[in-house]
């Protein structure tokens, strides 16, 4: 099939020093995301979703196991190299604090490009192109304080995308949005995924957001619990997700 973008094998993450009461936030998680996939990570609060995302996004280090992104083993990289790796291979959308409010939307989106030394002449067209894809051309000159929450998140998506990363990582990007704005962001992401083949990994605890994904990995207590694929319509998939979540609740109790 397609080439893998993210390979996670037997990753463990321990919090707390040896000897003290250690806790496994991740306890042997393994999975693979292929190019062009739209994968969701779900699980109850405290199950290790954010921890997993931080490990993949190189913001945190795994205690054990291996993480490969676009072919490179990130568990062996140094601080500086990790920074460069993040800026070249990854795109981020966080729940909030996504945009620098003292830069215009345009400057925010252009930032990853200028960081990589793309010349000023090439930056303009690239920003215009992603802005078009995400429908934010009209607000490019504005300051983040002057646009809505949904627009802000789409701008964040544009910034995550503009330098053509190997994968876009989102930690509850819809968490702070109302349903209308959430839908517009999710539609935009689906569009990116389907039309432009961008790989996306999305952490969420919201079943509605998750239903936009193709595949969902459920984790519980730091371990892989279940994996489901979308077969039919989004509505059916939504119901399926709710069922799994209900199961998760009962098994936990």
């Amino acid at each position, binding site marked *: 099939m397609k080439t893998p973008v993210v390979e996670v094998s037997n990753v463990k993450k321990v919090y707390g020093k040896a000897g003290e009461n250690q806790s496994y936030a991740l306890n042997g998680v393994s999975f693979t995301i292929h190019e062009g996939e739209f994968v969701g990570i779900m699980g109850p609060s405290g199950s290790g979703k954010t921890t997993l995302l931080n490990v993949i*996004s190189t*913001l945190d280090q795994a205690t054990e196991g291996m993480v490969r992104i676009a072919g490179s083993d990130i568990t062996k990289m140094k*601080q*500086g190299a*990790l*920074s*460069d*790796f*993040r*800026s*070249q291979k*990854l795109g*981020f959308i*966080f729940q909030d*604090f*996504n945009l*620098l*409010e*003292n*830069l215009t939307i345009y*400057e925010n989106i*252009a*930032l*990853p*490009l*200028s*960081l990589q*030394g793309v*010349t*000023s002449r090439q*930056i303009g067209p690239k920003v215009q192109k992603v802005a078009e894809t995400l429908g934010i051309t009209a607000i490019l000159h504005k*300051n983040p*304080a002057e646009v809505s929450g949904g627009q802000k998140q789409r701008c964040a998506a544009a*910034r995550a995308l503009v330098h053509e990363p190997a994968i876009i990582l989102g930690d509850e990007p819809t968490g702070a949005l109302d349903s209308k704005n959430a839908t517009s962001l999710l539609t935009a992401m689906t569009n990116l995924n389907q039309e432009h083949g961008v790989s996306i990994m999305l952490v969420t605890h919201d079943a509605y957001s998750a239903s936009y994904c193709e595949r969902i990995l459920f984790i519980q207590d730091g371990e892989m619990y279940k994996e489901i694929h979308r077969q039919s319509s989004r509505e059916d998939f939504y119901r399926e997700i709710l069922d799994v979540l209900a199961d998760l609740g009962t098994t936990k109790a």
Partner: protein
Amino acid sequence: MLFKLSMSGLRSKYKDYIVLLAGLVMSISIFYMFQTLAMNKAFIEANAMIGPIQFVFYAGSVLLSIVTFFYILYANSFLLSLRQKEFGMYMTLGARKNKITRLMFMETVVIGLISLVIGIAVGVGLAQVIGSMLMKELEFNSDGYHALYLPSLIVTAIFFTALFLISAIMNTIKMLRVTVLQLVHADVQTDKIAKRGKKTVFAAILSIILLLIGYASMIFMTYLQQLGVIIALITITSGTYLLFMTFLPLIILAMKRNKKRIEKGLNAFTYAQLNFRINSLTKVLATVTMLIALSAGSITAGMSFKNNIMIMVDGADYYDVTLHNPTKAEKELLASIPFTEQKEYRYKVSDKGIYYLKDDLMNHPPRIMIRASKEDFGKTKVPDAELPTGAEIRGEKNDKHGPQMPNDWYEAMEMIQPYYVYKGERVIIADQQMYDRVQGKEGVALLGKSDQFDAHLSTWKQIDAMQKSKLKLTSDQYINTKYSNYTSFRAFSAGTVYMGFFLGIAFLAMMASCLMFKILTGASKDIHRYEMLRKIGVRRELLMKSMYKELFYVFLFPAIIGIIHVLIGMEMFSFILVHPYFRVWLPILIFLVIYAVYYFITVQLYRGIVMPRKK
């Protein structure tokens, strides 16, 4: 209950409170330090070279009070901003507004009182340390200066109590005006950058005009006298504030417009930060500029008065030493000095007088001072008149005969044959024939010039002491050598030099705390920006570079304007100093080094807040 809650809130922000308290303590202690000098009339008048010195201190007090006033107001609005959100939350939970306001009022006053007590204690300590350090360094002894000076203490206490009451009232009014919602979202409000129009251009032009008037009145201080000081004080202060409020944002904006520059690396962020900072800092930067001008100005003035000692001394005596018939010990001392010019004149001492050999004088004439006008000060020449044989000076008046001694030679002979060597003995110029005929003891007068008078002070001192014992003079007898001239000039200037350095240090500390305070109090707002940049993969080094660059500009502008103020302002002293600009680069260089060190410290402290090192 509410009180307890607010105490816990206070504890959770202890870092910000430490910054706040440090800023307040600093400003109080410096104000006090200044007042220990400014209010000690007896000391100032006894030790200053400048006539209306009391007036200068009065003007300085006014300026420092204005600066302090704004500093304290700003500090307290910072205090309010620290608490706003929390107080807003209490209100949404049902706390009554007047209770909250009272709490705010109390907090402002309590913090004020705490910092007042610590500030005065620190001030006394600083005044003591700096005072005695400078006295030692300048070899200036005066028991008139007191580090613990009651009138200054009282004035400081009254001034700051009033300031804290005013700001407590202002904080209360602000709290009463805002709605709960505004309080809760207090930290979300982005600092808006005001739009600029025609008014700005007008204000920008006005600022330049004001500065020019101020500069002109400093240059023509000699004619304007005290009026000049007042005009300069008003126009330069207001001109500087206007300049920073109008020009600087325009400059940064122009820098930001350059797309090529902006879209390179992290520049977009750096300049955006800078733009934001410059706009929120205009008044602080103007204040800092004034403090730089005052500080560098005081230090430069102090140094100039110190340099002036040597200029005056060199201008009064060309030769470093005049010595008759040096002994062996004296010769040894002389050998240690790299003379650039040495003259020897033979003479014979008879009962009729002292006969100088004319040929020696004519062949190697000594240099004498040109004392025609102020411009000629320090310049020398050789006597240009013919030296007639038989001309004489000193001795009994009615006994005088022989030709008239020309003025130039009169001066030269007074120098070669100082009064203390042979007292009032007659001095006669003799040609070779006459000289050979004279029966008497031969002697030699020696003149030496080294270019490094101030590097060999201890040698001159020893030589003077030896001369006194050789000539059987008591040790407290005054002899008009260059060295004794030097010591009296130094004693005369030391008080002024001391005041210059003392004030320079005080203003420097004030400047430092002002800028550092403002930058650090704003820092916590920047934390999430740097965190986000780190997350999207900006290297630490690049972020550091951005901080250095941003703060470099913040530090640069006040330094430039401040130093221009100083350079032009030094002209003020031309009425008392011979060369006010002599070696002016030295104090400026020292100042710049201190300023640069302080810039690095600020960047490091800022980095510590926005980008804490992990592990």
